[in-house]
């Protein structure tokens, strides 16, 4: 028995690991995003700091940390300071249950999926609090938008999750991946036998994930050409930095959950390489798609977003839910 299996070491290791993973991802996804955006727009992106601009995130972090955090006079100072923490902390919590491979998971909790969505929802409340506490009209408009957007998008998202739950029969993320291990035809997105609309379910989940993480084309909360910087308008220095990191951490979680639920987690379609690399490859492919969408589409209008949710996504996710239950029930009737 190596020391890694002793419980306190294990916990410490995973806390450090999760923090490092989130930090590195938040920092370097910004770099990836800026480089990718540069390529989409026929320019170079960051090049000055370090080789290929690789030290740019470090320089940005130093700049942000050296700035004063200005609490606007008359704002609710406590909520104003707590809000960034409330974005970041739940995001870190979610990493505890994500199975990166068969053996790499901080806590294999039986209700892992439930826990991720429970903590994931706090993010929206934190943005709302930050906007409300800022004492800024743009921030308050943004806070109001975040709430209605969230109400509209949690519903179809959770409906698709319920569908997946019926297919998998467990909330344990590890178990869900185990069921899809047979090969890529066993991945939930391709399991048309349980529900012919499975790819649609995946698209709904992915769309809701974009809206949930306030990413373009659903970045109503930050809409900088309308609301300056939305809920983050009054945040300076690391106050803004933590919000920013939280946003990327939430994207990573959203893509990781999508990978686990639909794309077979660490399961490899061809067989070589350890599972963790496959997990990361699938996750980063989804993250790249998120970046790709942001730099291609203009922002949707707010009621367009709500219409999309209430008129298209919710009916469709309900349909897949009903369809799945029928498909699963019929064989048992005979």
């Amino acid at each position, binding site marked *: 028995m190596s020391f890694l299996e002793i419980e306190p070491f294990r916990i410490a290791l995973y806390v450090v690991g999760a923090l490092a993973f989130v930090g590195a991802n938040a920092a370097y996804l910004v770099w990836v995003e800026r480089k990718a955006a540069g390529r989409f727009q026929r320019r170079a992106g960051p090049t000055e700091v370090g080789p290929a601009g690789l030290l740019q995130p470090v320089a940005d972090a130093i700049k942000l940390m050296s700035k004063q955090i200005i609490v606007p006079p008359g704002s609710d100072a406590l909520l104003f300071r707590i809000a960034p923490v409330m974005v970041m902390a739940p995001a870190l919590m979610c990493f505890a249950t994500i199975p990166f491979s068969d053996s790499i998971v901080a806590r294999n909790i039986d209700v892992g999926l439930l826990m991720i969505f429970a903590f994931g929802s706090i993010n929206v409340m934190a943005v709302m609090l930050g906007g409300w506490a800022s004492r800024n009209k743009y921030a308050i408009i943004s806070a109001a938008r975040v709430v209605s957007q969230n109400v509209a998008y949690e519903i179809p998202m959770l409906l698709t999750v319920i569908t997946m739950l019926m297919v998998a029969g467990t909330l344990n993320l590890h178990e869900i991946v185990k069921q899809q291990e047979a090969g890529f035809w066993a991945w939930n997105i391709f399991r048309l036998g349980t529900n012919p609309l499975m790819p649609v379910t995946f698209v709904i989940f992915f769309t809701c994930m974009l809206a949930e993480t306030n990413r373009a084309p659903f970045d109503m909360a930050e809409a900088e050409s*309308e609301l300056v910087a939305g809920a983050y308008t009054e945040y300076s220095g690391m106050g803004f930095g933590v919000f920013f990191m939280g946003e990327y951490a939430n994207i990573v979680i959203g893509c990781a959950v999508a990978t686990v639920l639909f794309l077979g987690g660490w399961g490899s379609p061809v067989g070589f390489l350890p599972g963790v690399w496959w997990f990361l490859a699938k996750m980063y492919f989804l993250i790249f798609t998120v970046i790709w969408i942001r730099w291609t589409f203009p922002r949707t209008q707010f009621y367009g977003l709500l219409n999309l949710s209430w008129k298209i996504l919710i009916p469709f996710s309900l349909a897949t839910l009903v369809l799945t239950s029928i498909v699963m029930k019929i064989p048992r009737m005979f």
Partner: protein
Amino acid sequence: MSGAPLNLTKGPDETFILNLGPQHPATHGVLRIKLTMDGEYVVRAEPVPGYIHRMHEKMGENRTWNQYLPNPSRVDYLSAMAYSHAHVAVAERAAGLEVPPRAEYIRVIVCELNRVSSHLVWLGAFLLDLGGFTPLLYAFDDREMILDLLEGITGSRLTYCYHRFGGVCNDVDDTFVRGTKAFVEHMRPRMKLYRDLVTDNIILRKRLTDIGHISADTCRRYGATGPVIRGSGVPYDVRRNEPYSAYPEFDFDIPVFPEGDCMARYLVRMEEIVQSLRIVEQAIGRLPDGPHIAPKVPKIMKVPPGDYFFATEAARGRFAIRAVSDGKEIPYRIKLRAPSFSNLSLFEEASQGMMLPDALALLGSLDLVIPDIDR
């Protein structure tokens, strides 16, 4: 809560004032709009112009005609050529100066190239208002080619001072002619790219169609011109209605879309780029020989007493100069009729009851240049 109460002073009717600008990403300059908001709905939008008032009209009254040459291009820096054109043309009309055909052709070419570059800036900035970043860089990439071309013959890249009384200051060279032909060839497939990337995008269509309706009647009442009135179904274009320079010799269409919404104004401008390319292609192909400036132009321009007027079609609409002369070297009065001012003035009426993002889409579709409003 410490300090003053939350700054959400609500009026008796539950509205609050949102101060949009003078520093705001969507106003593209120092325009300030006082919005009375009911939640996200605009109850009243009161534009507050004047933050970049530079007294261009007054400057016209204390310097000679020649000294005023650089000024018009600073009024609307994005379509400087048409503004300079109006200025020299009003003096030519007043003094009865004959302009050689080559000069008129060159003027048409540079004005139309300038219109294309102006519309490309608008395209990028408008998409930026709608939250799409990438088209801005594509549009600026194409615009760069125009700026390089014009830099070659005018020496400047934005605020040109190319027009002179009786012609233009430099003749066009082979590099320019070849470059312009190459640009027209380059731009045609790019228009298809813009259609695929931007125009046919479902998000963009949903955001612009049936949003920001302006009736032809409203346009007339506020004196809106240019793509704004043509997007409301009125085929008014100075190049057609009051032909000037060499425009009657070219074959081009005036794009008109009757819907009056943001999409119509968008499509008018995109189509205008195509039409401008047509004009440029014809003009550069049939460029007459001869001098680029009239041979006998007085060093110091003097204009007989009278009241003169000249209008050109700038990228944003009808730009006109009214010059009153008392026979001296210095004009008695210069009045600039700027299209952005009229186009902005209908914003208050047209934006009523809209949601904030739609109102900003409407503002973007008017294509305002703030120095043009304030002069």
